[in-house]
């Protein structure tokens, strides 16, 4: 109990008496965390933007007018077992007709031609959404069977195929670049933290050797640095998230214009706050522990 109390006391004393060095260490940690969070934010925004684009792509199966409800049910039942499909919406014949009339309400020729037909010439439409753009090919293959040829008039996705592939390529590239950048940042962050802690310990190398010569055990010497690492991690993560929320306060109004689905980074951070702070706190803590442990090894050999 005495030892733990003394270790905490020494660590607080060291922090206060090496105020400049402690401030600089926390400052560097904050800069590193901000960089990571900027990258994280960009990654989230990219994913959000691509999913928004993906959501706007769908397949429309236009059925022939004579298609019966039974036929429709059968097709829907057949498609509903496919795991790639996330959503299916049926537009009935009447709804298609209403929509057509509404679109051409200013064109009297079109409407009178429709009147002359006496009956609804449109078949129902099935609108399908899939998880990923590349899944559209599977749906295409699934409905490309002879028994459905007689039912389906046309399919609207064929024209979008090229666009879908482009989006898929862009998304894949962005993901790869994001992964590469994240890995690069992780390495840079590790090196920055490692060197910051090493410099901090190097400046105290004589003190460490004196403590050793006076009879301090390794634990008694390492302890205060571990407590300091904990305080550094706590301070840097808290300040970083304070700064992030401040920045988001100004950024979110612009994002809400871009993302019509109501997505904001503040909401994202709020709903993932424990995960985000937890990961970053543990990472900084581990990095500082490992860095100080490695940096101190030489000094503790005295």
């Amino acid at each position: 109990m005495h030892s733990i109390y003394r270790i905490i006391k020494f660590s607080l004393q060291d922090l206060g008496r090496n105020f400049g060095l402690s401030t600089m260490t926390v400052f560097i940690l904050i800069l590193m965390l901000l960089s990571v969070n900027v990258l994280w934010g960009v990654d989230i925004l990219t994913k959000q933007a691509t999913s928004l684009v993906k959501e706007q792509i769908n397949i429309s199966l236009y059925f022939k007018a004579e298609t019966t409800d039974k036929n429709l049910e059968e097709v829907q039942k057949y498609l509903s077992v496919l795991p790639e499909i996330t959503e299916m919406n049926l537009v009935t014949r009447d709804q298609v007709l209403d929509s057509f009339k509404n679109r051409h309400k200013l064109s009297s020729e079109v409407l009178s031609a429709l009147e002359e037909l006496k009956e609804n010439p449109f078949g129902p439409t099935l609108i399908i959404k899939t998880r990923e753009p590349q899944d559209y090919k599977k749906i295409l293959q699934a409905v490309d069977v002879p028994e459905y040829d007689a039912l389906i008039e046309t399919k609207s996705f064929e024209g979008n195929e090229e666009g879908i592939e482009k989006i898929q390529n862009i998304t894949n590239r962005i993901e790869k670049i994001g992964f590469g950048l994240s890995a690069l940042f992780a390495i840079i962050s590790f090196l920055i933290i490692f060197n910051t802690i090493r410099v901090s310990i190097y400046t105290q190398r004589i003190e460490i050797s004196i403590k050793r010569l006076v009879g301090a055990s390794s634990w008694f010497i390492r302890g205060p640095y571990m407590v300091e690492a904990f305080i550094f991690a706590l301070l840097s993560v808290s300040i970083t998230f304070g700064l992030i929320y401040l920045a988001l306060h100004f950024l979110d109004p612009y994002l809400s214009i871009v993302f019509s689905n109501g997505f904001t980074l503040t909401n994202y951070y709020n709903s993932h706050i424990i995960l985000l702070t937890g990961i970053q706190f543990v990472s900084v803590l581990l990095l500082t522990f490992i860095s100080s442990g490695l940096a101190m090894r030489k000094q503790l050999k005295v």
Partner: protein
Amino acid sequence: MIKLEGVTKIYSTDSIGLRNINLHIKAGEFVSIVGQSGTGKTTLVRLLIAEERPTKGKIVIGDWDVTEIPSGEIPYLRRQIGVIFQDFKLLPKKTVYENVSFALEVAGEKSEHIKKIVPQVLDVVGLGEKMWRYPKQLSGGEQQRVAIARSLVHRPKIIIADEPTGNLDSLNTVEIIEILKKINEFGTTILLATHNREIVNELRRRVITLRGGEIVSDEESGKYRL
């Protein structure tokens, strides 16, 4: 108390610290180890506090076989020996009081005992009035007295002083030696490594002379001779 049997320390083929040292120091002795720079005095001190290990031979201090001591036990050995260095080795970010109390805190002494004993020891070395100053606010002599207080505070049976007056003027030198003599009068064994002729001649105690890493003389009431 301290026994060295055939102790040799070789750093490299052309750098030999000590050669075949055989030595026995009894409890309560005041022994001066003399010799010119580079004769092995500091090597001997380093071996005694397990800062280095001998290449050959055996070192025993009290019940400790220092040659075989596991690294985890070194702090416990050092808590039994008071060490005074030429460059004082004080913690610059700690006050005089904290520097002295640190030696007790690492040993797990109770806070009440520390609060009582540290001012007493600082009074003994004449620094009771300056206990809240930092080392840089003290003179060289005062800093060495802090180092003596620190080495003394846990009541060690042995104090090893490696050139304790090397950085001090003659007045401070006399004061430091007087303090060491007083400590010795209370029964503490003192091992003084020095190349200060006046001190050794004035002490008239046992003198061990080193040359080229070997003991060339060991006199019960010796003088400084090279």
